[in-house]
């Protein structure tokens, strides 16, 4: 089985999600190749060998510098069509999802998304997808060759079996007119200040239920007492209450602390996918019907403005 993995990169490094998918592909016993598209990406491509890629196809072109999906579809389509790949695998991201779906239309190839696992059954790929808010597990298959698969963030950990440098092969880049019309005017740059929430063992997170931006101070006190970090939902980040670097969710960070305390967070899917790998989840919300309670270990229906400061005091006196 020939498998191609889409290698996404950011600030000169291959992203963890792509490497996880690459490692999974290698564990299937497949003949695994990667493809990286960008400007100045040749140097990072070879490193994919360590995670199981025997060969990495590189499309290195200034027109591919911005992380936009449509030129990448143009790069992948001929490679997949002519390369005889049985499957093309993607790790979830804003970019990868758009590339995968564009490629599906271009090649009339089946795309299954939000997969958490994949296996080979009788020579055919079978994917696993939790559906309907994770209330049912669905086994999905493909009738097309290639089979396209998009995996949920954090499904696979990168494992380096130590394959050495991958063989790098350059691709010629021919882009469609419509693919280059969307242009990046200003690209996001991460603002890192203080410890990353991805490394924290304890996270205290706040959403709209806080009521006002200054209420984050209450969460910061609790986080400090617990030795943890503060995170936020997309709704409050978009509203300008808290910096983007602290956003947990589909388009924010994916975190898996030992303890996640959700305060005034309803639990939209956008948020859930970023924190569902947490060890223990405690939720405080005044709405007893908030979806967050469906995936909490301890759900507290009550006013966070009363409960959180009291909890902070209790934690402090216990620790002193």
């Amino acid at each position, binding site marked *: 089985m020939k498998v191609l993995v889409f290698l996404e990169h950011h600030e000169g490094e291959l992203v963890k999600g792509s490497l996880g998918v690459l490692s999974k592909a290698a564990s299937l016993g497949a003949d695994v190749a990667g493809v990286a598209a960008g400007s100045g990406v040749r140097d990072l491509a070879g490193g994919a060998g360590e995670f199981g890629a025997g060969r990495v196809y590189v499309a290195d072109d200034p027109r591919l510098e911005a992380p936009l999906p449509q030129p990448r579809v143009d790069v992948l389509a001929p490679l997949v069509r002519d390369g005889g790949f049985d499957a093309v695998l993607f790790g979830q991201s804003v970019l990868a999802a758009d590339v995968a779906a564009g490629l599906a239309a271009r090649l009339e190839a089946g795309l299954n*998304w939000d997969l958490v696992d994949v296996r080979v059954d009788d020579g055919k790929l079978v994917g696993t997808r939790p559906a309907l808010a994770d209330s049912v597990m669905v086994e999905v298959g493909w*009738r097309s060759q290639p089979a396209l698969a998009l995996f949920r963030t954090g499904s696979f950990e990168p494992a380096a079996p130590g394959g050495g440098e991958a063989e790098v092969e350059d691709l010629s880049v021919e882009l469609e007119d419509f693919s280059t019309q969307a242009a990046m005017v200003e690209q996001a*740059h991460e603002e890192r200040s203080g410890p990353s929430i991805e490394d924290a063992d304890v996270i205290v997170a706040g959403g709209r239920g806080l009521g006002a931006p200054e209420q984050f101070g209450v969460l910061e006190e609790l986080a400090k007492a617990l030795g943890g970090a503060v995170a936020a939902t997309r709704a409050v980040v978009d509203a300008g209450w808290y910096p983007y670097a602290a956003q947990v969710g589909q388009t924010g960070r994916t975190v898996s602390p030992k303890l996640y305390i959700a305060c005034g967070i309803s639990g939209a899917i956008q948020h859930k996918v970023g924190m569902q790998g947490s060890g223990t989840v405690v939720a405080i919300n005044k709405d007893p019907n908030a979806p967050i309670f469906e995936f909490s270990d301890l759900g507290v*229906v*009550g006013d966070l403005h009363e409960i959180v400061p*009291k909890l902070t005091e209790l934690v402090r006196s216990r620790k002193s």
Partner: protein
Amino acid sequence: MKISVCVKQVPEAAAHKRIDPQTKRLDRSGEGALNSFDVNAVEEALRIKERVAETEVVLVSMGPERALEGLRKGLAMGADRAILVSDDEAGGSDLVATSRVLARALEREEPELVLFGQQSGDGEGAVLWAAVADRLRRPLVSQAAEIALEDSRVVVKRQTEFGYDRIEAPLPCVVAVSDAINEPRYPSLKGIMGAKKKPQDVLSLGDVGVEAGDAGEAGSPTEVLALSDPPPRGDSVRIEDDGSAAQRILDFLAERKLL
């Protein structure tokens, strides 16, 4: 200008959702509603209509005929008309088949701007726009947190894993909006009364030029093989605060050695 908003009727949010073990499709027999994420896209189209003279907002959908109920909510909010591709042969369409049908329906309309919502509330899919944009051969921007219209182009603030980008694309183009882009209006009583009288065209696959074998299960290169129960999550405890919640959280954390 003409704006087409791609929308979908999904089972009502509070309804218990299930997949029919026979057909392996979502059971759509219960109460339906306009997909809440699509409501943000409709709202954004209406805000553009308020700013740009002579703008027409057309809802485009695919689904069983009763999906017109959901479309009427969009019409009640202020959209001008609706198109529903409804055909027995279209049931069970996956991404590839659905994007094929929608692209054909959109080609008939030739809108300057095609809008999508962030995801479907039932299939939890968040990829359709990219497939449709590729078929239409139009530029695409997804995850829009803001859309500004300048002359004949859009400037979109996009949120990704790394922060906010600003992306420009000329019209005609396809934009998928996030659910944080706006607070959708509620339909007024007058809007609700007027919605039924607005044009609502129900089209067959033949009407939009798609052969039966290219839609529905026959035209879908993915399949559902089996269903099973998810692995159980550990016991969940629910309490109501009676003044002792903070102490009970502390005890819970201590018991789990999380302090």
